[in-house]
């Protein structure tokens, strides 16, 4: 029973961090901070998938959601920066 309790406490901790990062991502004015916060949400979701015994899904979410998606956002932000400020 001790094992399950540790997982539940870890999941609650990760959940609180996840919700705080999601709120920061929406409320902040600068675009680069919003994009990085969305990447961190994806990373913590990957850890949550691992806690729920789903290693395939955790690998896919870490590679595609947290890595490649954030990269594409930064390509677009680079193009906008030259003409905005």
């Amino acid at each position, binding site marked *: 029973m001790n094992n399950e309790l540790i997982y539940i406490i870890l999941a609650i901790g990760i959940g609180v961090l996840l919700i705080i990062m999601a709120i920061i991502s929406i409320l902040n004015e600068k675009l680069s901070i919003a994009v990085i916060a969305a990447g961190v949400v994806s990373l913590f979701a990957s850890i949550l998938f691992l806690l729920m015994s789903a290693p*395939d899904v955790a690998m896919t979410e870490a590679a595609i959601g947290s890595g*490649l998606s954030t990269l594409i956002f930064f390509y677009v932000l680079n193009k906008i920066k030259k003409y905005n400020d």
Partner: protein
Amino acid sequence: MIKNFLIGLVLASFVFMFYNLYITYEPKTELSGIAAHYAEKGGAEVGAANLVTAVVVAYRGFDTLGEVTILFLTASIIGFFLKLSKKDEERVIVHHGTSELLITASQILIPIIFLFGVYVFMNGHLTPGGGFQGGAIIASGVVLSIMANPNREINHHAILWIESISGISFIIIGVLGIAIAGGFLDMRIFGLGKFGDLFSAGAIPVIYSFIGLKVGAEISNILNKYQKSQKES
């Protein structure tokens, strides 16, 4: 002011719906229905140790065909949208020079990343992994090489041929399933082999290798188009 009130109304209705769903939720205590059939007979019928791979490739292979089609459509639409004019093609990306650390590290890391990606999709039926994860890892390797040298020209013909041949081979294996074994995309066209070997589980390693190469080539193409779009004025 009225807009904020309406947004609050929509969100409050969502909270009400989710609260009702949460109250009447009972967690499952045992597998039932079709998951029980996959768990009991999956090892013997398909011969793969990874049951998620068995579900994605063997039992629901048609949905994987649909997903590969959607990715192909997305890559071709992005290739059409971000097409550069003739004058922009010849410009050079002006940059302050990439750092020495990135250039040296990329020369060591890129072959290792490709090797790891190929390992992940070839052993998709034994350990966690598979075609989509391996394809994403290969695409990260390609993006690292683009970042080390922003003016590097990726060979378009190589990516085109890899993607087309992988797609056509996937369809040919599916049609062979109709001719030799049970139905479309049945994996019993090769022998089932010994459980836990590399060459076991019928045609699953072959199918997943083709899917891994196709997904890797498509995502590299998308990222290359985004990189080239930095050139336009």
